[in-house]
């Protein structure tokens, strides 16, 4: 049987308390019934954060190690100011790598040119009764790919919006250049910078807490968008995040843990000074280890019956939800989803891209359900480096194009609209060699999110002297 003494949704506290009582040495004074919403309550109720940091953990895994040195030095939390301030908003970015085909995600079914150029892979109009699989109506001109049906209710209830014909000024149509442009927050490939826009955002705003989990990328390598951030962490999975415990250490688990503590302390010493990237990263890693040791992410149970797909994106969003609910100071989470470079066999309402979209729709719908009321603190931005060419190619796919679609979901979003300054799809309206023109600068969208949701008022530094024009996509 699994021990789920402390799941991140907060339902585990009663079990935690029972468990804690089994350890007479543990400090159980702080364990009280959890108010559903401690920060709104008028009485000086303890926050989840305090519960987690203060006692629940010392009561369990560390307590099991008895007189472990690490337990003595690390369990005491720092100041509680952050926990008592209003909940920080969280930005979740999802980067669709490879150039997602915006024209088949939000389908301009009102354009004849769309169907002339996409005879095989085009998505039928919502009112096209000849087809059983067709776009879901968003308005009189745009329809949603049917594989994203899980998102339709969110569009309907006003928490989801699309920005069409949106992109950067990148002219290379190279994945790497276009990604680099977008992740560095630059105008185009000629103006990109070595650091990422999220790294500059983090640098230009005050961290709400000293959390090592302020910015987390669920990725084996740090994405460029966080390059240059000293307070960002790249993780494959929260579950794997602990130091090795040798099997060969004599028998009991507590010895394994003592080895782990010994390693931790020796590493702290080795990485104590030095300002190169590796030494800094080492210090941050050790700090993250401390924090995650206090959580039990592998036991996380989503709320509301939310079912995340067993995919990288589903698992990533599930872990983001866990971190947000655990209230460990997360402000920014970055996720990636590859597989959008559909040069061949892209498919229409079925096929490769439809499967990709289905995963994305199911994952985002599960995340929204799981976060429930807390979703008002969370804004999800979905972006891609460029859209794809209007005309399908001989491999029944599409080549690299220009403008694409961005999605905004969650807190503060003025949903239920497809925002666009539509450039049109006729030959004279396209950009050579046959691509959707970009009429909304992606930086305007990101800047509005940073300003209105993460309260960044130093945007000119974040977007390299670009003075953004907001599109009224979000409420202040």
């Amino acid at each position, binding site marked *: 049987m699994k021990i789920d003494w402390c799941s991140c949704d907060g339902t585990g506290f009663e079990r935690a308390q029972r468990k804690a009582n089994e350890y007479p040495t543990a400090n159980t004074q702080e364990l009280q019934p959890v108010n559903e919403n401690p920060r709104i309550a008028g009485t000086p109720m303890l926050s989840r954060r305090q519960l987690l940091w203060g006692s629940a953990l010392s009561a369990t895994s560390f307590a099991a190690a008895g007189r472990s040195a690490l337990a003595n030095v690390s369990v005491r939390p720092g100041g509680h100011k952050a926990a008592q301030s209003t909940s920080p908003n969280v930005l979740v970015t999802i980067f669709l*790598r490879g150039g997602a085909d915006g024209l088949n995600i939000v389908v301009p079914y009102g354009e004849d040119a769309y169907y002339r150029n996409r005879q095989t892979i085009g998505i039928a109009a919502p009112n096209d009764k000849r087809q059983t699989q067709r776009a879901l109506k968003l308005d009189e001109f745009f329809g949603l790919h049917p594989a994203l049906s899980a998102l339709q209710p969110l569009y309907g209830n006003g928490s989801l919006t699309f920005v069409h014909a949106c992109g950067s000024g990148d*002219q*290379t*149509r*190279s*994945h*790497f*250049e276009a990604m680099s442009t977008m992740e560095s927050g630059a105008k185009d*490939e000629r103006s990109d910078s070595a650091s990422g826009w999220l790294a500059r955002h983090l640098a230009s705003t005050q961290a709400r807490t000293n959390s090592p989990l302020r910015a987390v*990328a669920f*990725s*084996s*390598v*740090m994405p460029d968008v966080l*390059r*240059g951030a000293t307070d960002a*962490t*790249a*993780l*494959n999975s929260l579950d*794997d*995040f602990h*130091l*090795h415990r*040798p*099997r*060969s*250490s004599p028998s009991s688990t507590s010895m394994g843990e003592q*080895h782990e503590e*010994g*390693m931790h302390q*020796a*590493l702290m*010493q*080795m*990485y104590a*000074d*030095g300002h*190169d*990237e*590796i*030494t*800094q*990263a*080492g210090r941050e*890693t050790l700090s993250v*280890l401390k924090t995650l040791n206090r959580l039990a992410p592998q036991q996380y149970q989503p709320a509301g019956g939310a079912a995340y797909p067993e995919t990288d994106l589903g698992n990533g969003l599930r872990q983001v939800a866990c971190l947000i609910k655990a209230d460990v100071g997360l402000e920014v989470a970055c996720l990636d989803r*590859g597989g959008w470079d559909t*040069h*061949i066999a892209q498919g229409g309402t079925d096929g490769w891209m439809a499967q990709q979209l289905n995963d994305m729709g199911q994952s985002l719908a599960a995340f929204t359900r799981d976060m429930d009321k807390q979703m008002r603190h969370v804004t999800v931005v979905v972006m891609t480096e460029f859209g794809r060419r209007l005309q399908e*190619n*001989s*491999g029944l796919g599409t*080549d*690299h194009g220009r403008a694409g679609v961005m999605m905004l979901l969650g807190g503060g979003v003025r949903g239920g609209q497809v925002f666009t300054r539509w450039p049109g799809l006729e030959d004279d309206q396209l950009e*050579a*060699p046959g691509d959707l023109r970009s009429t909304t600068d992606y930086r305007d969208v990101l800047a509005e999110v940073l300003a209105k949701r993460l309260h960044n008022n130093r945007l000119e530094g974040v977007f390299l002297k670009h003075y953004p024009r907001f599109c009224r996509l979000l409420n202040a």
Partner: protein
Amino acid sequence: MQRRDLLQFGALTAAGMLLPGCSRVVRRALPVQSPDSIALPQGDVAPLVRLVNRVSFGPRPGDLARIAAMGLTRYIDEQLNADDREDMVLTARLHSVEVFQTSAIELGDLPERAVVRQLQQAALLRAVYSRHQLRERMVDFWSNHFNIYAHKGWGAYFKPLDEMQVVRRHALGMFPDMLRASAHSPAMLSYLDNQTNRRGVPNENYARELMELHTLGVDGGYTQKDVQEVARCFTGWTVEDRFLRRRGNFRFDPAQHDDGPKTVLGLKIPPGGGQQDAERVLAILAEHPATARFIARKLCRYFVGEENSHWVSKLAAIYLQTKGDIKAMLRPLLLSPQLLHAPPIVKRPFDFMVSALRTLNADTAGSAQLQEHLARMGQPLYLWPMPDGYPSQTAAWTGSLLARWNFASALAHGEVGGTSVDLSALASSDAIAHDAADSKDHKQVRALAQIILPGQAATDRYTTLLKQLANHSVQRSEVAALLLCSPQFQWR
């Protein structure tokens, strides 16, 4: 590796060498030898360590003294003139890797992940044990330059041939030959979609990456129009159908070739050229000054760690003079005194893993458990999806430290499957100068420190830590693990 995988795989494997029992047989019959001496040469070893760390995947015990004795020039020339001879330790272990032994027909019967596993196994074994370390470093360089993603299409099945005929064959040869081989390689044709590049509706993927990543570089002066024209030149370059029954060879399909006139980088390509259109493009690109500069820049970054404009110009000039002779570019670079004092370069996870295995003189089969550690560190070989290869910037790898520490700990504790280390042999070496007053614990700690961090541990802030470790009689395995975990060991 799951037990089920093993069984399934073993049944399919003619030699069956990958079964743990059998690989143990090989390892017992041909164990990794302990070095005669692991003494360090006299004097300041830092420049020597720097050079050996750049030319190779890091010294094995005894290497530094041997190289110091033979002289750096001879060492580099020996490394540049790699031949096909390898030590039996490596040859015997490679013998079990059937993806390089069997025909494509049989290969097609293996599950894809088994093929990838064997590809990774061979790469690890060669990097750890090859006496031709520089060639292995260049194989790493070119494997990323001409990156193939094994999980796209038939990539895994095409990659063994690509590995042998493109990357390994030309790693220290002539760049234009390698470029041509890559352009004809079914692995590349399939990975960058050129097999679907047909007359009328060209697919630009290969054409673009050929110029951006393989030759000119993104600032190399080509335009979107050039990409489209090069794509037209490559129409009809495809992979033989039903490759499992034949060998998956390159095929030119005249019916799918766009035979009209083209202009590439301002040069006219007359109509009716057929396959020669793209051969001409490859020649134009290979002799282009932008290609010379691009390759020179990458080599500088790889070996020196920075783009020194003097060296970039010098190497680019050699490239143009010698028509792309890789050895001719490398020799002055590696012999340059500048290299001895170059800034540190972060080890990518593969570099880190291989250097750890080498420094501890590990006995490894390169098996799946080892590969899992590499994947956790973020660099599973042949599985970088994008054509630019694994990143080399430090910032890209700052998230990999925990996985590195955990590998170091597992390796030192003998908990990496198919891999063992004999720390007592290393720690008890009497070849290291000791204070007569040293306790046994102190001697062991100092011996390990000198092997893993040669020339560093004695002189810097580790002294205190090492003393503490010795005073508390910390186990050898934990000392070795910590030294591999140190910030210093993450750099070369």
